């Protein structure tokens, strides 16, 4: 039994270490009817862009063995609408809001960081340098240590808010990016974003996604995520937020043992809107020795 799951992550106080992952929980409101937002560790918003962005042509989702492919393409109403329309709803909830931002250039990341810093409701920023579904920016930043560092520096200069940088698994050595980003001023890392994948409908002989390729998420990617968290935890000193296929408290514990300080739940929300709540309940029942890094 654990009585207190609270942690401080990169200066953000969390009631518990279980957050909703970007792009899978909307801006909180969408799930508020089905899940008590006050119980969640933090909400990471859908990635916000500077200007409105239309997103990719449908189909945007395809189911694969124990996972899903998505190619949403960062559909966003833009930062202004986010502040005016989506953010006020969260005022009445006692849950930290971490804004995920996605820029097409380092200047855009800096601009987004600056604009969002003015809002008191935002507890921190997550830089999405790892979206596999957009042509400009996106994963390109997250696949090159220098570009990743440049973006992080630009955002660092533009804000005092805690900065979490979200890493892409679509790289040869994730620790190189992790170290570069740490040096550039990141307060924490989150990983992993989705793995670039593809599926073809053999009846129509066409790709199952409108964008042809997409990002794989869900239980299918968990062993890869665990491996990457474990590798990264040995390479950096800043805390790691682990994610990839978490559906239960046991899955979350695997990430803590691999070296994560907190976790995010993405695809699990689609399967069960109360997934996060159930994971938190499960963690309260777990032994405290399971919530810390393993010795291996």
């Amino acid at each position: 039994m654990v009585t207190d799951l609270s942690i401080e992550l990169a200066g953000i106080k969390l009631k518990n270490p279980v957050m909703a992952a970007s792009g899978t929980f909307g801006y909180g409101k969408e799930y508020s009817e089905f899940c008590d937002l006050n119980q969640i560790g933090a909400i990471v918003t859908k990635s916000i862009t500077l200007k409105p962005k239309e997103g990719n042509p449908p189909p945007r989702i395809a189911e694969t063995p124990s996972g899903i492919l998505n190619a949403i393409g960062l559909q966003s109403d833009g930062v202004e609408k986010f502040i005016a329309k989506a953010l006020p709803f969260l005022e009445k909830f006692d849950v930290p809001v971490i804004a995920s931002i996605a820029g097409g250039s380092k200047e855009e990341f800096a601009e987004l960081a600056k604009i969002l810093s003015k809002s008191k409701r935002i507890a921190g920023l997550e830089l999405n340098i790892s979206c596999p579904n957009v042509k400009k920016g996106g994963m390109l930043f997250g696949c090159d240590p220098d570009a990743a560092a440049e973006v992080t520096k630009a955002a660092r200069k533009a804000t005092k808010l805690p900065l979490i940088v979200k890493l892409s698994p679509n790289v040869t050595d994730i620790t190189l990016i992790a170290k570069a980003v740490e040096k550039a001023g990141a307060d924490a890392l989150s990983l992993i974003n989705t793995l670039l994948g593809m599926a073809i409908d053999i009846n129509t002989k066409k790709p199952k996604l409108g964008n042809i390729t997409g990002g794989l998420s869900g239980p299918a990617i968990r062993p890869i995520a665990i491996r990457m968290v474990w590798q990264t935890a040995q390479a950096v000193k800043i805390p790691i937020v682990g994610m990839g296929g978490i559906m239960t408290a046991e899955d979350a514990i695997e990430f803590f043992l691999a070296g994560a300080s907190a976790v995010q739940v993405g695809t699990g929300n689609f399967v069960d809107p109360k997934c996060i709540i159930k994971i938190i309940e499960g963690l309260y029942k777990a032994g405290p020795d399971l919530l810390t890094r393993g010795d291996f």
Partner: protein
Amino acid sequence: MSSKWRGTQAAKGTVCKTVIRRFESAPRLIPGQFVTIRCGTGTEPLLRRPFAVHRVNREEKSFEILYEIKGEGTRFLSQYEEADDLDILGPLGNGFKIDLNIKNAILVAGGIGIAPLTFLAEELVKEKINVTLILGSKTKLDIPLSAIGYKLLICTEDGSEGTKGLATDLLNEFVRAQNFAPLQIYACGPKAMLKAVAQITNCQVSLEEIMACGVGACLGCAVKTKDGYKMVCKDGPVFNSEDIIW
């Protein structure tokens, strides 16, 4: 727990009905809305499956879904004749809009698209609106249907049941016979049929798109409209046909 088992799983392509009992929100369900159901407890299939509300019994707090067996999810459900322990999320989405001032309605179903239109027909009849339901399909369907209080016209492309021809042929005739009298028109079925219906007349269409969250969070079930991408789960599944870019 008192679920009633059918004993077997149905074969691909067949149509099945499952009665969902003890569903507290049943009295709130309106025609055109849907629910999502978790088909099993593991990770295969992973996503919840969406189904339209086919019929409601408000007093008994139960409702029915009618579905065609496509893959693992629908096969799983087909084991249940009645169920009260499934993980069901709903009501979701916006239903059909009913105009009480227009006393004639025509409903066009393509195959399993009949599912939500049965519920709609029954509600329209309650509002004393004259209802004609056209059900079109490629070949004779094995669907248990009982049209009480409204007219059911069946047509098949191969002539194996009802009139030989397309649902849109019957719709065309019907619209012309109405002599421009005000009419409420609703349609649900394959996209190609909905597009053909939309070319004949403005109507309310219920759309399908592969969806993940069902609540408007993931932006997965996008459909292109004149006002940009809209989400089938949250903005729909019912749309005005003229707003859709077909």
